[in-house]
């Protein structure tokens, strides 16, 4: 099936923010909002819950650190214990730097790839921009028209005070507005 959505375009982030609050107060379902830069407070306004990517990062980091520490111990003391300048077989201090670097490396790559994963970002992904300027200087609010007490005119009335530039209906294929 296909959805009918309503795109409201604004010029300033504050307008978008206020509009979002207003719409949610009115109990309408917000599909998404599109902004040229990270608008502070928008996620809270839209009621998005904080990302769990921090955990991914932490787990990757720990894996890196512990894994490398163990590997270094295994190499230095178990696999082939070689006398290097009379240092102990397993010399922890000298193992720290490499372990740390590995931790950072895995944590960094882990979280970035997780981001690309959850946001479904990948090379060659086709985007049908709702509006050319959404990556330039326009702010777009996308509302779902399918719910019961929805009426375009009402919504327009609701949004006009926030310097609404234009309101557009669009039919998009199932699976979001991208």
């Amino acid at each position: 099936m296909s959805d009918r959505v309503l795109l409201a375009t604004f010029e300033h982030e504050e307008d978008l923010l206020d509009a979002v609050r207003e719409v949610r107060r009115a109990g309408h379902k917000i599909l998404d909002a599109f902004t040229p830069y990270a608008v502070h407070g928008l996620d809270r306004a839209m009621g998005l819950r904080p990302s769990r990517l921090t955990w991914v990062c932490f787990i990757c980091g720990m894996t890196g650190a512990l894994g490398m520490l163990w590997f270094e111990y295994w190499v230095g003391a178990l696999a082939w214990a070689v006398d290097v300048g009379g240092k102990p077989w397993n010399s922890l201090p000298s193992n720290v730097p490499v372990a740390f670097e590995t931790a950072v490396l895995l944590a960094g790559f882990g979280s970035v790839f997780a981001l690309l994963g959850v946001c479904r970002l990948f090379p060659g992904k086709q985007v049908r921009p709702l509006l050319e300027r959404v990556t330039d200087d326009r702010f777009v609010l996308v509302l779902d028209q399918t719910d019961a007490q929805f009426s375009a005119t009402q919504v327009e009335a609701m949004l006009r005070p926030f310097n609404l530039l234009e309101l557009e209906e669009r039919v998009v294929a199932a699976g979001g507005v991208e």
Partner: protein
Amino acid sequence: MATLRPTLITGGKVPADVTRDVCAPMERSPTALWWGAFLLASTALIVGVVAVTYQIAMGIGTWGLNRTVGWAFDITNFVFWVGIGHAGTLISAVLFLFRQKWRTSVNRSAEAMTLIAVVCAGLFPVIHMGRPWLAFWMAPYPNTRGSLWVNFKSPLLWDVFGISTYLLISAVFWYVGLLPDLATIRDRSKSPWRRRVAGILSLGWNGSARTWSRYETVYMLLAGLATPLVFSVHSIVSMDFATAVIPGWHTTIFPPYFVAGAIFSGLAMVLTLMIIGRKTMQLENYITVGHIESMCKLMLSMGCIVGLAYGTEFFIAAFSGNPYEQFVFLNRALGPFSWAYWTMVSCNVLVPQLLWFRFFRRNIAVVFVISIFVNIGMWFERFVIIVTSLHRDFLPSSWADYAPTSIEIATLAGSFGLFFTCFLLFCRFFPVIAMAEVKGVLEKPRRAPKQDSEQGDAA
């Protein structure tokens, strides 16, 4: 409720202007100035390539090294470039964590500079090997030697991990920051091929609020990771020397000393590039005198830390009562290489003191000259540390002199060639200013007033 923002971007720019101004250099054909610079840089690069090829074909003997001075230009250049590479991450990560909004205009190019500098640095550990084609032996890979791994006790191996991690993380950091801008380019560019390339590179970025919120999180995480990383990397580099027995190397203050020095030199290089860049690319409104001044303040503080370190070294040597240690420092200041030592001191400690004065901080020409001096001085710092410590160590019988050969000088020139060639290409093909971030810190224009009823409802 509306927070007051300082004027970071002058000229009353609105988001659309930002996009236009920043994309302009990419869209118009390169200026004669750019071509000139590019020609110069690439020539230097070619010279360097020839020199390195000759050296790899003939042997390390084509450098002026000897049985006593085993490192000189090679590792000096290495440490120098790694140092340069530190400012980028500092500006983008550390200042990000400290919520220094002014960073937004410079972080993109600073990060690019970091990447390129680290690449330049990474070359030297490889070409300084007697058998560079065996460089992969530094990697702990399973082998048929039963099974012989690598020496995790060697600071040089820490370097391998440190530098490569730093390179990769900075690259990711830079690229992630670039995503929204690439999307912008994709959406606005007329030429189909640029549209296509930007389309692929931007990974289908569409500015959705959900993506933005996760993006912010990850960016914060990366900043959080990059900050300790940047300190660890140069600490590790300093341990190449600090863990050695050679007097003048065997010093516990090296890690902070090196990190400060690295940031110092990095800022100087950023300044050099920014001052040229803002002129040639008409970005004065984005990289304002204010930006330059705040970087000058940072640089001054770093310069003072470095100066303090120089002093500390001497004090500790005197305090230690270790005659070898004491001799090395006396030899630095008064020995055969005193010229290098005093060049270093004057460039790194004396000259930057001018920056105490607001007048000089805000005088572009002066700042430019100072930044050049600092670059020179920081190169000599590494040279002094490496060569003067080595050339007269414990046994007087094996004291030796050092003088670079033409090959070494050409290699140094080549590394600068590589650096500037890459940077010029970056300026040509990438947005030198993080548009998405700058848009976020623009001064907000007047808003049309809203109906009171709304207000009332809201209240």
